């Protein structure tokens, strides 16, 4: 069953052109000039119910804009979309009963009040049946381990605690699809991991569709089956996360500790990422050379104390993907 269907969705913002200098500022005050800036340029994709999808792209690629159109916050310039069979912007209210959303930067918790009060308001907003609400609330409190700070004003909670409350609040009406915009931003590694586990749990147990944007490669790797990548408002990749990794995993990272300082190292297909004395981090392009030949070339002239070979972090893969597409664009 289709959960999300997007067809040639487009969003164009009118941006006031800012002119140079004070004279320009004054001029634009009285006679503003507008330029069209396409934030999302005709993207098409579908998501099945129960899928976990990462929506990726560099800053300003149109990720947030897309997610806001899918949740009915923004009206598109053209194109269509259907979420759970509803058109988000014309059937906003009807859809809102069935989806949940978490915007990392814009909290729905009441800042001066304890989370339990926000939950109570949520139950009124979503018109939950009393008994069901209480059961659901207690279940989420247990699952997200919110007990200890349920009665503490939100302003006194740490960022991680707050985000857990935030996600719990967005799940209180048992949505069929959950949209998350940068859910782990600013959190430390342990908290990030916990939040990912919780989201995944909801997906496994309740079949909730998960659609998230993130800058964090870990979110993608640990949480999502599929990745959709956009850049400059257009779709550049749509497929399994595993395939994305294979396709773009053309480099390996080799960390070395040598007995002596190797000086200037020049090898085909090898780039030195960092070096401090005898410690080296290399990036090896496996299309041009092999790890074996690089290591044997090194052993011929140096003694190796320690070596580790790793896949580069997801972060680098994504960055490289953008790079590849930018390069392709430049050629064509």
């Amino acid at each position: 069953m289709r959960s999300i269907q997007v067809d040639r969705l487009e969003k164009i913002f009118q941006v006031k052109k800012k002119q140079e200098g004070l004279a320009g500022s004054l001029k634009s005050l009285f006679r503003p000039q507008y330029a069209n800036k396409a934030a999302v340029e005709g993207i098409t994709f579908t998501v099945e119910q129960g899928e976990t999808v990462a929506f990726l792209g560099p800053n300003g690629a149109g990720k947030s804009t897309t997610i806001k159109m899918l949740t009915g916050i923004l009206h598109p310039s053209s194109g269509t979309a259907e979420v759970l069979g509803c058109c988000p912007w014309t059937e906003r209210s009807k859809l809102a009963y069935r989806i949940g959303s978490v915007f990392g930067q814009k909290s729905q918790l009441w800042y001066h009040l304890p989370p339990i009060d926000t939950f109570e308001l949520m139950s009124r907003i979503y018109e939950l049946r009393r008994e069901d609400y209480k059961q659901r609330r207690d279940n989420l409190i247990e699952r997200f381990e919110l007990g200890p700070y349920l009665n503490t004003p939100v302003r006194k909670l740490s960022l991680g605690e707050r985000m857990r409350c935030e996600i719990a609040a967005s799940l209180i009406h048992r949505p069929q699809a959950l949209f998350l915009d940068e859910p782990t931003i600013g959190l430390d590694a342990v908290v990030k991991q916990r939040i990912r586990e919780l989201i995944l749990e909801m997906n496994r147990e309740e079949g909730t569709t998960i659609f998230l944007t993130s800058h964090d490669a870990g979110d993608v790797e640990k949480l999502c089956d599929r990745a959709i990548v956009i850049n400059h408002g257009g779709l550049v990749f749509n497929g399994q996360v595993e395939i994305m990794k294979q396709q773009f995993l053309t480099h390996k990272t080799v960390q070395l500790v040598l007995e002596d300082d190797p000086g200037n190292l020049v090898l085909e297909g090898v780039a030195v990422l960092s070096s401090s004395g005898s410690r080296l981090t290399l990036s090896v392009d496996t299309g041009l050379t092999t790890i074996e030949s690089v290591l044997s070339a090194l052993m011929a002239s140096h003694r190796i104390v320690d070596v580790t070979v790793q896949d580069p972090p997801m972060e680098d893969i994504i960055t490289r993907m953008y790079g590849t597409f930018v390069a392709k664009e430049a050629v064509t």
Partner: protein
Amino acid sequence: MLTADESYTGISGHDQPGKLRRLLRFVTASWRLNLAGAMEFRFSFLLTVGTMIVNNIVWIIFWGMYFKRFPVLNGWTLQDVMMMWAAASGGFGIMSVFFGNATRLANLIATGQLDVYLAQPKPVLLNVLISRMSVSAIGDLLFALFIFIGFGDVSPVGIVKFAAALLISSMIFIFFCVIAGCLSFWLGNTEGLSFQLFNALLVFATYPTAIFKGFGRLVLFTVIPAGFISSMPVSLIREIDMPFLYGAVGMAAGLCAGGILLFYRGLRRYTSGNMMGLRR
């Protein structure tokens, strides 16, 4: 993979009958939360409420002294001026206490803070307006009630008239502010302009309509409809002037319809604060 329709059991009763009752539940829940938030800082709560009352008393003293020296001002007496203050500060109080985001709408629109409300299944404008309570305005509301008890006609007819005056006055305040705030959908951040418009309405609503003539008077019954608030004491409370009443009700209804229309029109242009991110 799960197929949603079979496994999904919603826990929302939103498709059941009794929609209005549940909407009222939501509104009162929001107000209760607002008040609870204000009570978090009990001392400053009492202080701000108190200062607002003092602020208004200053004007009572001013008018008291004025009318001691000049008994009548173009047909207005001290009692009329008192009732004018009751209608104006009461209307302002109702807006700021129960629909406290009305004066902040321009800022909310320009900085993209409507997202949260848009993601919730409730009428957006209502949800936005009731999500904030101005604590100091509780002082204005109490002040209005004190003045009415002290200077007004506390008979059944008098109470009905005063309630009608408060209703019309608060409607004008709320939807005038909504319209002023909606300018932000089209003109970018109009926080300063919107506030000045609201401020002009508030200031003009607290001076006897009778002192304004010609063009000034025309403005007060059109662009800045403060005249409909400040005329209440003579044209509704003292004795009912039907043409005035039609005008006031018409203005309140017009602003209400216009404000709602403008807001939902504007929502289509809402940029969720993305404009700023795109500035080059």
